[in-house]
């Protein structure tokens, strides 16, 4: 029995208790999919049972389907939330619910799970289609995005984690879901499961499929993309750091961060091709590039030399704790240092180690984006204060 977004009112819960007493001897269970499970309802009781749950608005037929999206609290109530996981889940639930009757059975059985940040409380990593919240800088604005994670296994005791494919602006995620599921229906072979489909088609093809959806119109064309679900607050033009002397430096940093994501994606393709060792090296190179991007925001003259980048990153971002996540501390930077050691020592990487390292590389790059956005906001605030001071002088 589905609870939309895992929510139930006190009246519904009291009624559920009554229903449990009436049909299943006082016992019910909550599930990891944020639903309620009644066990051992006798077949003869099913019609009455259905009428009873329908009467309290919980008779929807979409439990354990793609419509039944699971989400963590996200920005609604969680201080760690980056993007609105519940807002996205609500929107997906609404849009998929409208199409529910016409959905292909293979699509209907998929699971979508959403986390508001990399901490994965929404269990996006074991969903067919998972999302976790990140932020990206677009044209000088912070824009809520979700990292699209595909191919996680919900069955087989969550036997496999999904793999990040692309960062898509939050407001374009419903289109991304549509695009992925339609592609699956068109391209799958016989009864091919979604995980097998993702593995066969390959991440590059899916990334290409989503490429258009990673772009959004300029803020003066459509500002809705610069807001999150259920929150109309937008960034204003005053938030743009137009005309600052740091402009060129910022764009260099952003350029490097974007490049690092492309490189990490290449690393994933290598891993898919069974080249774990090469994948690890490529992932480390992507991390190095992200670190260099950050360093460039403070020292534009930094060279491409590995030692110099690592030393500068350590001195300017790790030792100063500028890179530190408010809650995770220096963990993401340590992934970078560990990857460096691993590659430098020439250790052999089996597939499991390579998967782990690539996931850590993704988290490092996300953290680099986060750090860059924080610093940029600080610079812009300082410039505004300075401008205001000059104006009033």
């Amino acid at each position, binding site marked *: 029995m589905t609870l*939309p*977004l895992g929510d139930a009112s006190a*009246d519904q819960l009291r009624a559920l208790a009554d229903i449990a007493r009436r049909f299943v001897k006082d016992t019910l269970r909550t599930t990891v999919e944020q639903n309620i499970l009644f066990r051992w309802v006798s077949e003869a009781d099913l019609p009455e049972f259905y009428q009873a749950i329908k009467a*309290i608005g919980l008779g929807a037929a979409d439990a354990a389907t793609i419509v039944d999206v699971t989400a963590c609290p996200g920005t609604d109530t969680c201080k760690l939330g980056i993007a609105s996981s*519940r807002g996205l889940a609500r929107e997906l639930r*609404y849009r998929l619910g409208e199409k529910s009757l016409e959905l292909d059975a293979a699509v209907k059985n998929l699971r979508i799970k959403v986390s508001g940040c990399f901490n994965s409380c929404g269990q996006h990593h074991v969903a067919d289609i998972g999302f976790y919240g990140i932020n990206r800088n677009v044209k000088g604005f912070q824009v809520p995005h979700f990292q699209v994670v595909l191919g996680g296994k919900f069955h087989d005791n969550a036997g496999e984690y999904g793999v990040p494919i692309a960062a898509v602006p939050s407001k374009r995620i419903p289109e991304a879901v549509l695009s992925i599921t339609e592609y699956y229906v068109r391209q799958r072979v016989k009864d091919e499961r979604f995980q097998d489909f993702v593995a066969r088609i390959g991440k590059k093809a899916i990334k290409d499929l989503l490429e258009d959806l990673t772009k959004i119109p300029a803020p003066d064309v459509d500002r809705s993309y610069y807001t999150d679900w259920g929150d109309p607050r937008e960034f204003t033009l005053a938030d743009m750091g137009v005309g600052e002397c740091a402009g060129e430096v910022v764009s260099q940093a952003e350029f490097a961060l974007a490049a690092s994501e492309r490189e990490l994606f290449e690393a994933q393709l290598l891993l898919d091709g069974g080249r774990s060792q090469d994948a690890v090296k490529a992932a480390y190179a992507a991390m190095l590039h992200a670190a260099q991007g950050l360093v460039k925001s403070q020292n534009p003259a930094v060279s491409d030399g590995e030692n110099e980048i690592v030393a500068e990153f350590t001195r300017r971002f790790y030792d100063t704790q500028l890179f530190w996540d408010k809650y995770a501390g220096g963990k993401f930077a340590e992934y970078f240092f560990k990857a460096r050691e691993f590659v430098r020592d020439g250790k052999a990487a089996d597939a499991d180690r390579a998967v782990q390292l690539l996931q850590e590389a993704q988290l490092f790059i996300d953290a680099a984006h986060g750090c860059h956005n924080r610093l940029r906001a600080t610079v812009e605030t300082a410039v505004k204060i300075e401008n205001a001071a000059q104006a009033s002088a």
Partner: protein
Amino acid sequence: MELQKIEIKFFAVEREPVPLTAFIDLFHGWIQASDGVYHDVADYSHMHQGPGIVLVAPDFYVSIDETGGRRGFLFSQKARLEGSNQERLARVFQTALENCRRLQAEPALQRKIEFRFDEFEITLNDRLLAPNTDESYLEFKAEIEPFVGRLFGGAPISLQQESDARRRVRLRIQAMAPVDLAAPLSHVGSKANGRGNID
């Protein structure tokens, strides 16, 4: 009985249906227009007869509530209030009415929705202070009756007790004659600020 965590729900009369989600942007507008009085909006529009759309302030909630299958404006005092029970009731009413009146006048709603002031519910949202027993009910009624009597200028009223003992102590109050918004406000007479506290 000490009255705390008082909730008041004024039922809605809709000339045209207003989707719950319309209140999200509207309440966000209140956040932006106020200087820290309100600070968040919670969306429960996906729920059946749920809390609807909730505007969160540090000391109280304001919401378009659909509990019980009847839409209404719910004011829910969270922070503890000082004073006598009658003073607390007056403060909560004052703030609830001000917020309700403001919502009703929102241009975005184009007067599609209004709230009844001749029929409302008062709930005590604290089971420790106010368990739902006959004893609590009698004490609660003894406080409410004179207050509502003053509020409606002595017009006859009916009081109906919440019948489900598992729910919180609640009274539904109905004036036997029509009451408009100005009347209750003029009879409340307590000076309250937007935070539900006395200035």
